[in-house]
């Protein structure tokens, strides 16, 4: 029987970066397999149920025309040998062989612990948007949106449009830095127009800069958020608190492969190659930069993975978006006060219920695992790892397979 899952170029992740990589690689003449865990393409930013957003449609169509083979509902769980991935698909373990790999696994939200953050009703900011797109209704619900980054406005606008009562928005970055960021937007007209759109839909909703959540109070679920700007405190009543502190790239697969990191992103060369031969990366793994950077880096990586030389225009587009990502990172840098919100009783590892106080004597994430089980639960430190990285400066512990909780039957029955 033929091995239908093998390809010259395998792309992991079908968000903007993966879609662009798959299209460019297939258009460059390579056989391409595009994998994603989700049931349909788009990643988190273009997540949809029935109809993809317009920007996504163009890329989904282009991938279809390119001849790349999509495979959805496919989760990478291990790297059993060089040039080979173990993928769970429809309850079976499938080996997928590749000559070149493009990793476009995107990002997740950074959550920081504060008293009450484990209460039901406290969700992420992207999480609130994901819920909305999964069909959750927000009409009439009181929502506070907090944390950092332009996503706060995007999500607040989407929630308001769907009937939520957005009580207020708290952005931790100070006003001065936001004004500077606003000026860089004038060089990116599309982003500035987006901003104006949110502005009109958010009229009348309090937007507090230099402000952050102190705690989420309530019994059996959040009832109010307590906020501060460092000088005074106030409360906003809500049944949903959407709070997240930016994004962190999903580095589990590249780290399992042995790819070198550079800070919170991957170390990548001029054409998106990682330190591991034949392995490219794109999108948020390049550094958090949004959909435009994802499309640009995906294009470069896909072209390179097909063995083609990358056109200068593609590289220039990528570098322009990288400059924007640098401005973004500077603007939304996290303030020091956020390191001191959690008390000794505040749970930090939500899977194993380990409070911050128990980590007092630990000096690394490895030690925390061994002594307290922090980071050893179902999420494998995907939530507490980045939090402790910020709170304590701890580097992430080594990644182990399986990358996702996997039924034993999948590991035993590989084809």
């Amino acid at each position, binding site marked *: 029987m033929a091995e239908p899952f093998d390809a010259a170029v395998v792309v992991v992740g079908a968000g903007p970066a993966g879609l662009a990589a798959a299209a460019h690689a297939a258009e460059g003449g390579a056989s391409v397999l595009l994998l994603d865990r989700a049931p349909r393409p788009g990643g988190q930013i273009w997540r949809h149920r029935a109809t993809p957003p317009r920007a996504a449609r163009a890329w989904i169509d282009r991938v279809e025309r390119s001849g790349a083979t999509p495979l959805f509902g496919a989760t990478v769980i291990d790297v059993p040998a060089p040039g080979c991935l173990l993928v769970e698909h429809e309850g079976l373990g499938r080996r997928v062989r590749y000559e070149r790999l493009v990793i476009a696994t995107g990002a997740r939200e950074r959550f920081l612990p504060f008293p009450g953050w484990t209460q039901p009703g406290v969700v992420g900011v992207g999480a609130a948007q994901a819920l909305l797109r999964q069909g959750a209704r927000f009409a009439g619900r009181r929502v506070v949106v907090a944390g950092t980054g332009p996503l706060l406005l995007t999500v607040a606008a989407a929630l308001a449009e769907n009937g939520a009562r957005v009580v207020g928005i708290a952005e931790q970055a100070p006003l001065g830095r936001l004004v500077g960021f606003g000026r860089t937007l004038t060089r990116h007209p599309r982003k500035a127009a987006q901003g104006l759109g949110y502005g009109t839909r958010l009229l009348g909703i309090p937007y507090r800069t230099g402000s952050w959540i102190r705690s989420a109070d309530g019994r059996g679920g959040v009832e109010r958020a307590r906020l501060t700007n460092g000088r005074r405190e106030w409360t906003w009543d809500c049944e949903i608190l959407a709070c997240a502190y930016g994004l962190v790239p999903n580095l589990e697969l590249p780290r399992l492969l042995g790819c070198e990191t550079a800070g919170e992103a991957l170390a990548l060369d001029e054409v998106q190659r990682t330190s591991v031969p034949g392995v490219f990366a794109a999108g948020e793994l390049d550094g958090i930069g949004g959909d435009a950077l994802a499309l640009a880096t995906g294009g470069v990586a896909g072209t390179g993975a097909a063995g083609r030389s990358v056109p200068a225009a593609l590289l220039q587009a990528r570098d322009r978006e990288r400059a924007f990502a640098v401005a973004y990172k500077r603007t939304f840098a996290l303030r020091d006060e956020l390191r001191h919100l959690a008390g000794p009783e505040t749970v930090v590892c939500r899977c194993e219920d380990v409070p911050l106080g128990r980590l007092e004597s630990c000096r690394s994430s490895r030690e925390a695992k061994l002594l307290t089980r922090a980071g050893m639960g179902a*999420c494998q430190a995907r939530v507490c790892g980045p939090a402790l990285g910020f709170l304590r400066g701890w580097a992430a512990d080594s990644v182990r397979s399986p990358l996702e909780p996997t039924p034993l039957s999948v590991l035993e029955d590989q084809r």
Partner: protein
Amino acid sequence: MAERVRLMIDGRVVEAEPGTSVLAALWNAGQRTIRSSVTGEGRGAMCGMGTCHECQVRVDGVPHRRSCLETVREGMEVRTDG
């Protein structure tokens, strides 16, 4: 979308639009608390995208399913009580 999917949540019949996630169906049924943590704290969804595992439920007898990654199906049986 006239067609509705009917599923059971903890023995109760709940209707949902096709394509809705199980998490969204729980949310729309007014259920913020979804699981009990290892020390017995009530927890609800946090990340909404399959990372945090806080929204785990039992689906048709299979434990530890992330409700944010499951799509509702006619006749599906969801349990949040273990």
